[in-house]
């Protein structure tokens, strides 16, 4: 078996092993889904639509946003931080594999595992519980899936770039949390940009963040027209390529910058 495939497989198995974790994260998702869905429900009240979005669409958006964040598992940042802190990076670099690909394989395993035991059960739960949550037609579902993959690409490369900065900073500390916080706000995962004043929407259009959550969710709920959806997918791909290029350059530099702190 290919080494990267094997790493992914092991990770999937390890996700399935921790049953209590699965249960708690299910409850955790349920809490967030309830909170966000009822927030929008009571915000809309009797109103049918606001900012061109119906309450039904918005509740679906909120519920799926929670599911996406459960499913976008990214560990590369902490992984690199840990390996450098413990000095394990020296041994890892000796292995005859591309280290970044290993981390990616691990995260993909994690994503597949989470999809199976966390996201899909939570989705079914949401469909049962909230009558507002709907499934769109097949074209949109396919576009949504493609868009999600590109979103994951953007988020992963961004996270890996943050992770590689440890080679220079030695201790990542809370940089990851700062980044996550910024992504959470600017990705539209809590409140989409349709509700914001138009100048903020314009600025956000030039930033990579809204293409991580708002784009796939906008496609799913039918807020984005199909034609526009293709354009958004292209923008997502461009951002992913830019970040990948930066990541590649940084990785080449970082390899020559390793400082081992005893371990």
């Amino acid at each position, binding site marked *: 078996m290919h080494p990267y495939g094997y790493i992914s497989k092991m990770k999937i198995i390890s996700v399935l092993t*921790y049953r*209590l*974790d699965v249960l*708690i*994260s299910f*409850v*955790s998702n349920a*809490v*967030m889904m*309830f*909170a966000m869905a*009822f*927030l929008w*429900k*009571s*915000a*809309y*009240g009797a*109103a049918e639509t*606001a*900012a061109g979005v119906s309450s039904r669409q918005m509740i679906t958006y909120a519920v799926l946003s929670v599911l996406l964040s459960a499913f976008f598992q990214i560990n590369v940042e902490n992984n690199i931080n840990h390996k450098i802190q413990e000095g394990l990076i020296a041994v890892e670099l000796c292995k005859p594999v591309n280290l970044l690909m290993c981390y990616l394989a691990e995260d993909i395993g994690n994503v597949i595992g989470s999809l199976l035991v966390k996201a899909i059960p939570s989705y079914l739960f949401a469909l049962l519980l909230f009558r507002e949550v709907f499934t769109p037609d097949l074209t949109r579902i396919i576009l949504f899936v493609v868009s999600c993959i590109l979103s994951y690409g953007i988020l992963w490369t961004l996270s890996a770039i943050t992770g590689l900065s440890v080679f220079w*900073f030695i*201790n990542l*500390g*809370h*940089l990851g*949390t*700062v980044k996550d*916080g*910024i992504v*959470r*706000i600017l990705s539209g995962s*809590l*409140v989409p940009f349709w*509700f*914001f004043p138009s100048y903020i929407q314009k600025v956000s259009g030039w930033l990579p963040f809204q293409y991580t959550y708002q784009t796939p969710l906008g496609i799913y709920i039918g807020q984005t027209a199909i034609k526009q959806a293709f354009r958004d997918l292209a923008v997502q791909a461009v951002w992913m390529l830019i970040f990948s290029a930066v990541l590649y350059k940084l990785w080449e530099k970082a390899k020559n910058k390793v400082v081992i702190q005893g371990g």
Partner: protein
Amino acid sequence: MRALALIRHYCSVAICCARLTIQEQLEYPFLAICWFFIIPIEYLTSVGLLKVIINTFNNLEGWSFPQLTFAYSLALLSRGVVDVFFIQLLYLGDMVLYGELDRMMLRPLSVFFQFTAQNINFIGLVNMIPAIVIFLYSCKEVSFLWTAANIAKIILTVIGGVLIRISFFMIIGTVCFWTKSNNQGVELGIKLLERSTMYPLSIYPFFIQFILTFILPLGFICFYPSCEFLNKNDGFVIPLGLSIWTPAIGVLLFYIAQRFLKYGLKHYESTGS
């Protein structure tokens, strides 16, 4: 005389611990700078998002923007205190698993005191600033009356909120004595606290309100007290001035949590690490 000497001894230990933690925190200036940004960003975004929602929909279950920020900032005040003195409660499970708690029990000092004193999060003090700013802003907007009785009520509410929060995390940490894994549980706890204090409870259906009032009384951290300050009749109608209930429930919960922690320690089997 002996009591005085004891107090002096405790103070000297506390000061020594404080000096160590300050030095440790200053050792990583980069971390300190990061902390400096995270919490204000987090608070201001939550407020900003509430603002966006209110701008679009005018109100949330009859709560205006200043009223919402008033309730939220009341919760932030108690959270600030917890972040400064009790942030290590989030790692209670880890401390048990790595044997740190066993070491504390061997020292001739109260375990609770050691636990509080060993890690005073000075950088956390900075987090109080945005909380206080938001609080003062919303006090002005809702024309809060600064009478002695009201100030006393606010202080009692914050103390009660702190007690509810730390008891909540103590219980989660204790559960990990049995489950031997902590992080997911703490994350769930943080999410629950966040979501039950950011929006009024009245947006939730009856059974969730019931849970957050009588089973996990998180509604008392800020929702019920602010109902009283703002003269609202939301949620469950509870007799005898709601803000009186917050400290009372805080003390009761803290007692339960401590008993539970002791019970957990008694039945604790080492992980062998």
